[in-house]
């Protein structure tokens, strides 16, 4: 009994001291255990955090390349084609109906996720300066629209206003538990345009040397690109001209050192917003060759002939006029002044504002030719033809622009639809106008995981 009492006493003494000890520990616990385990980690809570998310170069890279790979800007020799190990790239080249590039989908939706993280956290951050918030928000909305638009050129049909067409899943929250649902195509484009309009109001005029960040003129230029693709020429002209009003600069190609491997440096004067596509196996400069008939379109006094092209040892023509300063199998898909000039000219001509169109072309051509060709006294159709030819020559290998143009011309509204043809030895592959293969299949894994509707075949 005595032992028992003794134990009781002992245990209670121990318990009390333990309790005292643990409460001492636990009160300071909160702070002690609140420390973050990896010092480079952070929950996005500050301007610096969201700024850094937007500045990640992944948001300027990896945009859809499937369309750019499927155009008639280039060709491969049968041997080079056979030597490509990436099956998707080989299928893409011959417009196989089952070709689908998961990388394109993943990259752009990852950018959309990053942007959504920023937008979701905006209200939790205290900004010292309201302008900072506006810039961040504008930047985020711009990127979301930019990614969605380029996805639409690969994974949705060309817009036809009188049809019920499937658009893209539009994700506006970073919550990964939200279901993936296809919006209608009209809704997709409305969303893209609304976002860009809002961005154009929020973004600053000047982003300094950082052309990886969008500016007001980038938003205008992007709106012009989108409106042109859906053939709303009035709005295209309006936003192209708004963009041009923001002091866009045309380089004088006469001053370029065309001997250089890459005559156009990264962030060159014409670049408004820097962005590049994902890597495409068929676009590797060693195998990607320019058709001589295309090369022959360039006049001898056209500076582009020397600065865009070089001859391979076997006499074939290679392209080096990339606006991102390198030839590595990716393409520049960002916005640049030359495109805006050409949009303005084409849209104005289309609207019948031939004089405005001619002024734009004058301004543009003088920076491209030693002796610009004469194009006065042309009819509207002839002028359009002329502008489109310059567009073809200027925007060669420029992201998915050619692909979007092909989709646009194919509906016949421009009286210029034509099919594409590729040859590999004796095999001929054709992509006729309005073919379903102008829309790529959504990656099978997305269909499986989300249950959304696959594109028609």
């Amino acid at each position: 009994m005595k032992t028992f009492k003794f134990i009781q006493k002992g245990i209670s003494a121990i318990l009390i001291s333990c309790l005292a000890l643990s409460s001492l520990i636990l009160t300071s616990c909160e702070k002690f255990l609140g420390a973050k385990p990896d010092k480079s980690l952070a929950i996005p809570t500050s301007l610096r955090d969201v700024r850094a998310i937007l500045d990640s170069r992944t948001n300027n890279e990896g945009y859809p390349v499937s369309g750019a790979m499927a155009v008639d800007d280039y060709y491969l020799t049968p041997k080079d084609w056979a030597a490509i190990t990436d099956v998707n790239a080989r299928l893409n080249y011959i417009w196989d109906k089952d070709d689908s590039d998961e990388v394109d989908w993943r990259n752009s939706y990852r950018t959309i996720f990053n942007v959504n993280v920023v937008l979701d956290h905006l209200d939790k951050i205290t900004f010292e300066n309201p302008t900072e918030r506006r810039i961040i928000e504008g930047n985020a909305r711009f990127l979301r629209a930019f990614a969605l638009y380029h996805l639409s050129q690969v994974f949705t049909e060309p817009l036809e206003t009188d049809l019920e067409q499937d658009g893209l899943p539009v994700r506006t929250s970073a919550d990964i538990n939200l279901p993936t649902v296809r919006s209608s195509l009209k809704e997709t484009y409305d969303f893209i345009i609304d976002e860009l309009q809002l961005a154009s109001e929020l973004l600053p005029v000047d982003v300094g040397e950082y052309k990886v960040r969008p500016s007001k003129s980038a938003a205008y230029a992007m709106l012009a690109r989108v409106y042109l693709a859906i053939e709303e020429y009035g709005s295209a002209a309006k936003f192209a001209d708004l963009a041009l009003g923001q002091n866009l600069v045309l380089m004088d190609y006469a001053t370029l050192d065309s001997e250089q491997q890459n005559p156009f440096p990264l962030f060159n004067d014409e670049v408004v917003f820097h962005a590049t596509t994902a890597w495409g196996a068929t676009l590797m400069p060693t195998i990607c060759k320019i058709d001589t008939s295309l090369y022959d379109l360039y006049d001898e006094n056209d500076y582009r002939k020397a600065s865009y092209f070089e001859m391979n040892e076997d006499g074939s023509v290679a392209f080096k006029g990339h606006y991102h300063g390198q030839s590595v199998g990716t393409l520049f898909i960002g916005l640049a002044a030359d495109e805006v000039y050409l949009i303005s000219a084409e849209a104005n001509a289309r609207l019948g504002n031939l004089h405005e169109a001619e002024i734009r072309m004058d301004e543009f051509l003088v920076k491209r030719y030693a002796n610009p060709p004469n194009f006065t006294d042309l009819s509207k159709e002839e002028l359009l033809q002329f502008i489109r030819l310059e567009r073809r020559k200027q925007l060669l290998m420029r992201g998915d622009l050619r692909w979007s143009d092909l989709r646009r011309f194919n509906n016949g509204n421009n009286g210029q639809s034509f099919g594409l043809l590729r040859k590999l030895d004796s095999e001929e592959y054709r992509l006729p106008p309005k073919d379903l293969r102008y829309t790529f299949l959504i990656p099978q894994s997305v269909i499986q995981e989300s249950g959304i509707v696959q594109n028609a075949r």
Partner: protein
Amino acid sequence: MIRFIFFVSYMALVSLPFLSSAQQKVIRGTVKDAVSGKVLQGSTLRLLSSGETTKSDRQGNFEIQRRLQDSILYVEHVGYQTKELTLDDKSFWEVGLYLDNRIIDEVIVSTGYQQIPKERATGSFEVIDNGLFNRQVSTDVISRLDGIASAVLFDKRKPSNQLFSVRGLSTLTTSNDVDRPLIVLDNFPFEGDLNTINPNDIENVVVLKDAAASSIWGARAGNGVLVITTKKGQYQQPVKISFNSNLTISEKPDLFYEQTLSAQDFIAIERDLFEKGFYDADINNTRNRPVISPVVELLARERSGEINRETVEKQLVTWGKRDVRNDMLRHVYQNAWNRQYALNLSAGSERINYTASLGYDKNNAEVVGNSYRRLSVRNQVDFKPIDKLDIGVGIYYVNAMNETSNGDQIRPSSTKTTLYPYASLIDEQGRHLPIEKDIRASYADTAGGGQLLNWLYRPLDEIALADNSNRSKSLLLNMNVGYIFNDWIRGELRYQYESATQHARNHYSEETYFTRNLINRFTQIGPSGPIYNLPKGGVLDVGSSEMNAHSLRMQLNLDKDLFGTHRITSIMGAEVRQKENTLFNSRAFGYDDDVFTATPVDLISTFPVYGGLSGNASLPGVANPFAGYLDRFVSVFLNANYGIADRYNISFSARKDMSNLFGVNSNNKGRPLWSFGFSWDITKERFWNLQLIDMLKLRTTYGISGNVNNALSANTTIQHFSPSPYLVNLTNLSYATVINPPNPELRWEKIGMFNMGLDFALLSNRISGSIELYRKKASDLLSLIPADITTGFSTLTRNSAILTNRGLDISVNVRLLDKPFRWNTNFLFSVNKNIVEKYLYTPNSLASLVGRGINITAKEGLPAYNVISYRWAGLDPDNGDPRGYLNGEVSKTYSQIVRTNDWNDLVVHGSATPESFGSIRNTFSYKGVSMSLNVTGRFGYYFRRNSISYGALYNNWVSHVDYNERWQQPGDELRTDIPSADYPVNNQRNTFYTSSEVLVERGDHIRLQDVNLNYQINNRINVFMYANNLGILWAANKHRRDPDYYNTLPRPRTYSLGFKIEL
């Protein structure tokens, strides 16, 4: 009924003494350790005739009633040799017992928190005592456990020799070492580099296998715990000095184990591909000028008319006779020499004891220029200023240096991963020869017209020029104060500081290819000579890391006898731990090692690359120069053992851990973990009178422990990066990546384990051992799951899976022969089967499970590491295409087969890790000579052997002799399963074949692991010889593949010679 029999026998037993005669005499005495003089408590004293027994008390004293017929007294103590005393008239006996080295079980096991007599433990402990631990020879501690510890399985499929598991897998996460067992050094988790622990400082190693044993380690115990105990001095012990040294020599690695094609065959393939135009794009490539092999270069020169056919043929014949592996063996590899020296000193007086040691290791590895040196110093002092107070102070310092030449890492380019077989590294005159590297050699040789630095790569030069070292210093300081409050409460305060710094230095002098290549790439030839955008001089990479860990523990130990025969022992306490890591990397250009100067450079701007080999690029600086990690834990714990009459033991433990698991609310940070156990020593029952059986103890436990992964977070987390200077730098903006989408339901992984064991000893301890059955259920496992990529993630991590392990561990020790010729056999056998029981997410296609089983591919109902293949339908008799199944039909649509979602198209072989394994260790000894052989076996698993992949052969120069056995003409399909060569290569066809069922083999094999020959010349001098990795005795596969190393080179045999002197 059984209970009734027990009762009757019990009654009979207890009434026996009362029935016998009453002539009595009291014998008193003390029991001590004959060597150290330490009193022994709990020794059993038994009179032969009357059967009267008693135990020695705390002071070693005993008192026993002797009856007339008694003339012999047995004195037994676990771990000691039993003493037989012939009684005379003396009434006071001083009994000295000697340690019994033949019994494996130590008396005391350490859990890191307390010392538990194994006798009273309910949990499952595996003890590797000093003798067994030192049977092997190695520089490190961990690799010695291979083949001698039950339930411990080493995974040799990856290069490290320290990957092991205890009782199978408890998690599906393998990154960040989440699947590794916890390593405890003395009292605290060891956070530093395990290689720094000198095995000569180790007394023993205890493996805590079940929940009752390990759950005191709470949230970190889920994978099992290894407690490494260092040597300690003892009070009242004369000065002991020992010195030992050994030398280990290894054979060169067997390069011919790799089944690569001969040079002649390889050349024939290249000629064929050349004809087909495969190399044309590379040959005509005047931009980045990729590497082309010497044969292709030769053929291209012939085609352009530079040389004639005859020259070509002559050259090719010469090259066809070469094998670069001979050059490698002669000039890149050597016999490894490992030397080890250790000096130990220990002594103790009544109030103070100490132990000190000095160790030095010097290893020259198999690769010329790779070496390791380690110096370790240890000192531990314990003293008792007063009887009730003991204080210990210890310091352990290790200084190690690792030098690496990477001489064996020869990669011609980023895609050409293997050297062509006809390469030559040295010519007859002993001049080191260049090989193709990064850019086409014919271009590199002439580029710049002499204005550039030499651009050729000579592998053997690089070995000599290598100046790449990693120095580490680690310091372990510990202090402990113990105070005895009264005869049953003892308080302890322990503090440990662990610090480890690493300093890596890789100096690429201007003579190295690395530096010459960089300088050349950034050189422009101007009118007035070359302009160096990357300054001439060396490149110096410096990396340093620092780890600091503090641990503080307060603990109360209770030990109290109650009601005469009951006893409670308990510990309770709290601890706080913090571990902080910081890392720093930097690179200097234009470095001059003589005067320690470097040239500042512009890491932001881009510069043209020489010859337009690539687009403009910025100088390759260091990507993420800084990193820091911080782990914090706060824990409270309790462990209690209640013993009744030495027979029944009930144990209970509970622990709560809280950590700074990032972003989780404090509430969710902790999870209480607990265990419960019971043991019953039947032989201590009074009714027990079976003389054949000396010990029979039943144990059963259940408990829950945890597993922490601090790399995950419940909130959206982003990671900041410094501007990335690799490739073309876009801007000098720092940036961040979202690495973790929000997961508010994140919790710790939970491992529940049930264990049932039986310990036994028969025939006067001639046969002893244990049999244990267990079931381990790991739930809430974080697993990577596929996601809809539209969310922005292709995979997510969620607490989603359940994994169970069922297993059996048997360990039996038999003394087959005893004196003068002794023969002991130790038999270990373990079965461990794991099955993924729940896995919520199904992959896109079942085909994504196909693989080699090196990574976890979880699927409900299958082992976590499994081998699954494409079903094989033989070769197409027409063209030798491999055929599989698609939706159950024979098919060659590879693009669909490799995405199949139909089990009919696949074959499940089974586990990729052994489901049973064991060893038989026979030790023969005669007088001072003993020899011990360890034969190990692994069973019940599968592996995939390599074969020819035409894509890898053409694009990466990875060849395989199966090429020669390929299908070449109709009819061949009857003798071979190797597909015909195809061109252009269809990669999915390759994938199908190399992942098909025809390449899967059973991994079962038996291996003679090692032999130890030992000669104890006298009390002081011992010499030994030891041979390791001796070879496979039997293997189930007929392709001469070593199933443990089918993807890497087998570890070469090693031979050791050593001695130990004790003074």
